């Protein structure tokens, strides 16, 4: 080996070391603290009580017929959070995918302009953006005034799941579009032509070529939307009329009740569940991805 290449390895070997140190101290150690708090009580003695509480705590919920029904509080909260997050993610995907595709097929200049436009709302404070949605969606809000002006009647949106989903979709849509767009913009146009040439109608091209090729982007986009939407608390508070109580609300509520250990336990369980889900998802979709060899 020549002197030059050894020195080169030395230089580049050092390049990553600040980050390695940083990652250990500021990514791994804090996570260890979450685990530590999750498995200790207020006097820092080991306990699994916080974890079992998450799975066993019950509440009485009125059923359809008005009769009380025992439910597992946090499992129900998790289920509802997951449901809303999943709906939002699917909507983001359904809206974001075609948009990303349209943008990726536009002229380079139009592409850049449109991507810029998609980024711009992210620069406005998200609390303020959510506030603006309140103004639009409420019963006497802009949308209803507009509809009334057209004699189309009124719609009740604020406080419903729809409102929360709109808020989440609005806030997280760019996170879906960005990864999708970046993979679609890189996609080899000749593959699409090849598919057309081999007898695929446009729908078939989408299903058999574009979709599988953009799978890594879909995985990234879904991850980037699902995760913040499963843990949000502000959007559900503002647009859900305070009627929704999600995992984020639960964690924040325990934090403000100074119940740090239980807050950490919820966070820990959520974290483990998400990491597991992501690992499974990546494993499943790795069949469809192709190691970036075509990139």
């Amino acid at each position: 080996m020549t002197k030059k290449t050894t020195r080169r390895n030395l230089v580049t070997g050092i390049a990553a070391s600040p980050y390695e140190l940083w990652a250990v101290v500021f990514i791994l150690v804090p996570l260890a603290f979450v685990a530590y708090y999750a498995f200790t009580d207020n006097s820092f003695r080991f306990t699994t009580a916080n974890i079992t509480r998450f799975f066993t705590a019950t509440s009485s919920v009125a059923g359809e017929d008005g009769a009380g029904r025992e439910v597992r509080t946090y499992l129900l909260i998790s289920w509802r959070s997951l449901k809303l997050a999943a709906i939002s993610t699917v909507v983001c995907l359904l809206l974001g995918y075609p948009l990303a595709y349209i943008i990726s097929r536009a002229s380079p200049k139009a592409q850049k302009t449109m991507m810029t436009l998609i980024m711009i709302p992210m620069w406005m404070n998200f609390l303020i953006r959510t506030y603006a949605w309140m103004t639009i969606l409420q019963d006497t809000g802009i949308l209803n005034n507009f509809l009334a002006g057209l004699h189309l009647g009124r719609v009740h949106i604020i406080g419903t799941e729809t409102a929360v989903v709109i808020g989440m979709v609005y806030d997280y849509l760019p996170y879906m579009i960005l990864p999708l767009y970046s993979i679609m913009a890189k996609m080899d146009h000749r593959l699409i032509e090849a598919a057309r040439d081999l007898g695929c109608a446009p729908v078939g091209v989408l299903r058999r070529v574009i979709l599988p090729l953009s799978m890594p982007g879909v995985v990234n986009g879904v991850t980037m939307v699902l995760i913040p939407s499963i843990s949000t608390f502000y959007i559900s508070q503002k647009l859900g009329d305070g009627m929704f109580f999600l995992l984020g609300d639960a964690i924040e509520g325990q934090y403000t009740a100074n119940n740090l250990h239980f807050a950490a336990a919820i966070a820990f369980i959520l974290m483990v569940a998400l990491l597991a889900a992501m690992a499974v998802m990546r494993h499943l979709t790795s069949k469809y991805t192709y190691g970036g060899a075509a990139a």
Partner: protein
Amino acid sequence: MDKIIELRNITKSFDGEVVLDNISLDIYDNEFITLLGPSGCGKTTTLRLIGGFETPDSGDVLFMGQRINDVPPHKRNVNTVFQRYALFPHLNVFENVAFPLRERKVPREEIETRVEEMLAMVALKGFEHRSVTSLSGGQQQRVAIARALVGKPRVLLLDEPLAALDLKLRKDMQQELKNIQKATGITFIFVTHDQEEALSMSDTIVVMSEGRIQQIGSSQDVYNEPKNAFVADFIGESNIVDGIMLRDKSVSFSGHTFACVDGGFAPSEPVDVVVRPEDVDIVPAGKGMLQGTVTSVTFMGVHYEVIVDIGGFKWMIQTTDFVAEGEHIGLYIEPDAIHIMKKSEYSGLYGDYASFSNEFDELSDAESEGSE
């Protein structure tokens, strides 16, 4: 033979730049036709018009007598082998080949047998479950061919399919493509900028330049009877000199009057005279029709390439006899070695080897490959 594809008066331009200028071309069933020309001559665009990826600005594309200008690619019974193959990276070899069959909802067993058949034909049996990205260039090429043929198209379009292969492999693939074409009886429309490739494979060669067809003919036709200086120069090596057609079968150039076999020109009409380098014999100085000085000699293996200065015009001569640089020699040319062409817009642009160098040629070749 039946016409399978007709192009009628097709014009196409991109961003105001004319790429195809009033092209008309008939392609017959079961024929191996090559579109040959330098990069930017419009050959790939012609192919894409037939494939359905472009629509002409004016003129018609006919498939078996029917106008198909607006038929989308997936509804044309025409398949393409793309320049860099365009294999689907998310599918394995088998699935790539099965792709068009699955689209047509062909029964499973039939897919299996047809794909196996195709893979056998391109000698890729046993590669079914390999990822296409793990294949070599030649293997990818075969997959692309199998994929394009499995749907039994009437016409196969090949867009410089061999450009990315190395020389040896390219020669093998040329032979193989020719065999496949014969075996399947499918019309092949082949695009290349490599004249040797074109000559060795084609039934018909279409020489194109600047968006126009220069000549259509068999390999022998375009080599032996080039229509103009462009074709003469582009296909093989040519010495092209100005001459005067004195009368039928007599032409004067380089200060000498030669007997030739061509006729039908006006008396004393200025013409372009083509003499292939291999058709010139070297004789001792003072003998022969022309006298010159050797300026360079290059050993090429089978022969020497000799550049001879004759009255300021440099001729290229290929000979198996050794001559030394600086030697004075005489040149002898048989009448049937002389080909007479009408003057054209390309006259005077080609055929002088004054600035010739091998290196230069290769460089421009590499450039055209890279840019197309």
